[in-house]
């Protein structure tokens, strides 16, 4: 469904995305994980046609992504990192406006808006101005905006950044439900637990490159299912990875310092490869 061939995006001397090859099948919830400045947003902008690759090609549904291709635009929904609501309009008016832009006939538009408002649990607040909504509600409305045209592919750029834990979990439920409906979802995030919870496949990205791409489980397995964490003699935290918990316990028995043995997380995988924490 989505294919990138040798895609590079260069800004001056900086390679925001560096010679990337990637393929994402239909119906997959795909996570792009990486620290700020890893190139995730640039990659998304190229996928949605808002930025042109310096070299390489991007395909969506066998069509090369072009700027101003209305057929492609009809296939996708986008939830950007920043709030993109029309603050002078109410919740419902925001959705009507987007529906009109997508040329959805009035009756069908009304049906879809009613369904979406139920889906994102904003029916009661539909006549509130969007600027009066909480951060979490605004995010949910942005997701509804992105879904108004019933897109095949949904792009989410840091969809839960800057909102509280309850709202985040609420949005996770919405995204899970979207996944169950068979949508292809591409999400960037720097929240590890978000990627672990939601994604079928995760790409670890740093300095414009994807250096690992697999299921969260396989990524963890490759490193070792268990992590031994202890403070070494140089007063630095040491991380060691083991396939079996017994191996970790055996090693820990010889330590004369406090230690922790826990299940390996995606953050461990990321840290091991980039030597840099994601959060």
């Amino acid at each position, binding site marked *: 469904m989505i294919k990138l061939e040798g895609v590079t995006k260069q800004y001056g001397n900086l390679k925001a995305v560096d010679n990337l090859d990637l393929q994402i099948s239909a119906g997959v919830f795909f996570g792009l994980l990486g620290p700020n400045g890893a190139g995730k947003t640039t990659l998304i902008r190229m996928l949605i046609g*808002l930025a042109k690759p310096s070299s390489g090609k991007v395909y969506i549904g066998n069509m090369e992504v072009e700027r*101003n291709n209305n057929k492609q635009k009809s296939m996708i929904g986008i939830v950007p990192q920043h709030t993109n609501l*029309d603050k*002078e309009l109410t919740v419902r008016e925001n959705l009507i*406006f*987007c529906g*009109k832009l*997508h040329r959805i006939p009035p009756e069908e538009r009304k049906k879809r808006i009613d369904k979406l408002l139920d889906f994102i649990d904003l029916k009661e607040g539909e006549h509130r101005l969007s600027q009066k909504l909480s951060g979490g509600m605004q995010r949910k409305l942005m997701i509804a*905006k992105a879904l108004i045209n019933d897109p095949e592919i949904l792009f989410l750029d840091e969809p839960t950044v800057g909102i509280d834990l309850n709202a985040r979990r609420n949005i996770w439920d919405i995204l899970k439900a979207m996944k169950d409906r068979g949508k292809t979802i591409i999400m960037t995030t720097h929240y590890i637990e978000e990627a672990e919870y939601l994604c079928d496949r995760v790409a670890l990205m740093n300095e414009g490159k994807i250096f690992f791409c697999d299921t969260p489980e396989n990524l963890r397995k490759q490193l070792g299912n268990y992590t031994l964490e202890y403070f070494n003699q140089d007063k630095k935290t040491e991380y060691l990875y083991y396939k079996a918990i017994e191996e970790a316990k055996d090693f820990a028995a010889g330590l004369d310092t406090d230690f922790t043995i826990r299940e390996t997380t995606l953050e461990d995988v990321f840290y091991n490869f980039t030597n840099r924490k994601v959060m």
Partner: protein
Amino acid sequence: MEICTVLWREFIFFRRRLLQITTAAVISPLLYFVAFGWGLGQDVSINGHSYMYFIIPGIIALTTMNTSYNAVTIRINIAKIHEKSFEYYLTSPVNMYLLTLGQVLAGSLRGLYAAFLITAVSYLIGVQIKINLFFVVICLLNSLAFSAFGYFAAMVIDSHYDMNRFTTYIMTPMTFLCGTFFSPEHLPGPVKFIINLLPLTHASVGLRAIALGGTAEMFSAAVLLFYFLLFYALGVRASFREM
């Protein structure tokens, strides 16, 4: 479709902010009436007409210019830089020619509304200038030209601060030089030549000709139409560059 969509959204905005929009459109022209009309110009007459009759068409031209320009620049500027809602257009399957036209029309309607208010105020204070259909056409063309210019300006700037450049170097000089408060006929040749190239001059001259009972200035209307088409084309081009 895009035109109706934009007009629908702008009508909601207009309805919600009717009082602010109305007072903002009327305050400056009222001050011009008081300062230049009743204050400075009480004993002045130009070409046999009292100064008040002379400046009201200029103030209408000026107000339609400012209102149309600001209506579009502020809305687009906020949508593009502050709300980031403009990006939604760029990722929606819209016809950019029609979308731009919708924005420009919405701004020009705000300009016409301001022109109506000023005309109404001038009638209320007893200055009853002559108005016909061509007067309305000139107001509309002036509004369209500056609304399109406002759209173009908003599309090419990247920050709120950049907006001041257009206001300081283009809008403010035109406000005072383009035949709004005095006839440009008496200015030195080169200055007069430059001023005669500017759209607001043609709006002032065209409206004044009708308001004072003269003949319709077709040339002025043609110049305003030319500027509208030019700025509209530049605005569309700038929109495509954003995509």
